[in-house]
């Protein structure tokens, strides 16, 4: 490969200078390539690309003293979800047991599942008020009739409206964290503004146990 350069004219010979080699000098790059790929492999394997994401949830402040319920508390557009091990039950409105003051029939638990056809469809139906309003604001935003800030404010207002769906979440002893987070996730997909994880009542727990048989 490397060849001795021809001797030039007599002048250069006299100075004793060597002429540069002609053509590209070949450097063996194999070790460098090895190293480069080694480093590459190392970084590919050790790096974690996606930083973990967080889902925020604001809990209600704990009441200072015991809360007295006077029975006149109205529950508007509320649905209660009861979570058990990978199963999800719900009932709408207030909870009625035998011999309740209003004489309403006993609450019956309905069951749904975590699939798109289950809970997602259910919530979309129940929360139609907010979703329809939001769709209206969306188109207004897209046609630039309202500003971003106005849009966010209006959506927030719609979510806090008395007609918007409110959700209570109760869990039994065998529900997993995945069930809980999945449910919260579905609620966020359905644009539900008021989410309240609360303690399960004994009477509700009994109904769930009767359903699951555990």
């Amino acid at each position: 490969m490397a060849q001795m350069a021809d001797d030039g004219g007599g002048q250069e010979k006299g100075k004793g200078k060597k002429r540069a080699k002609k053509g590209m000098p070949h450097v063996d790059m194999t070790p460098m390539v090895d190293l480069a790929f080694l480093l590459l492999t190392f970084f590919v394997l050790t790096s974690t690309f996606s930083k973990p994401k967080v889902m925020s949830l604001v809990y209600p402040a704990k009441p200072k003293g015991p809360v007295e319920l006077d029975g006149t508390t109205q529950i508007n557009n509320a649905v209660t979800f009861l979570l058990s091990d990978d199963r999800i039950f719900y009932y709408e409105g207030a909870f009625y047991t035998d011999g309740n003051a209003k004489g309403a029939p006993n609450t019956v638990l309905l069951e749904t599942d975590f699939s798109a056809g289950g809970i997602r469809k259910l919530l979309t139906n129940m929360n139609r008020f907010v979703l329809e309003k939001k769709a209206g604001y969306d188109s207004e935003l897209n046609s630039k009739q309202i500003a971003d800030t106005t849009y966010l404010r209006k959506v927030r207002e719609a979510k806090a409206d008395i007609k918007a769906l409110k959700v209570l979440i109760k869990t039994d002893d065998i529900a997993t964290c995945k069930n809980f987070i999945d449910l919260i996730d579905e609620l966020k997909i359905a644009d539900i503004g008021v989410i309240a994880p609360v303690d399960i009542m004994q009477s509700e727990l009994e109904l769930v146990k009767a359903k699951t048989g555990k």
Partner: protein
Amino acid sequence: MAKISKPKSSPTVDMTPMVDLAFLLVTFFMLSASFRTDEVVQVDTPSSISDKIIPENVIMVTVDPKGRIFYGMSGNDTLKTVVLSSMADKYKLKLTKEQYSEFAKLTDFGCSMSEMPAYLDMGKEERKTFVEQGGTKGIPADSSNNQLKDWIHFGNIASLASGEKAYTKAKEAGANPEVNDFKPKFVLKVDGKAAYVYAKHVIDVFRDLNLNNLNFVTSLEQDPRQTPE
């Protein structure tokens, strides 16, 4: 037919473009890499559609599938040392200088205060096997001995104090900082398979301290509203 003469010397391949590419990729990965933090337990977090990135300044409580509680916090060595010394004072524990500096290196830990000196004396790998084999029950959080509450409480105080300093510093530097960026955020990292009652217990501890805004660590999943049907 003309004969095609084979070159006598071994064919040289010009590797320059390949090397260029290799180094380009190396540079890219080096700069974009955020290394996996060395946590004592690996938990498998559930997924959600939330795309909010985990905040910088956090107090993180981890719940593993067995329901054990681990505590970790972001911040520099001084901050962690302050928190540990407050805890050591409260639980009347004497720790050496080495143990303090060892504690500052930990991303998270899960042991009671009585186990703490032995836990800190362990090596990194030793600690991992200790936790894996169930040598510790995690940080106690029952009502009679609620050490988790103290950890969160002292962590919050120390983090707020250092956050305040950073805030005034940023303000003096002429920036217009957001106060909330300097306050610690409370993050809950729960394993999907862990029973919710364990997580609920931790949430109740936070709520007892009047810290009601919690964040759950989740992995990202596709938002079904954005997929065309």
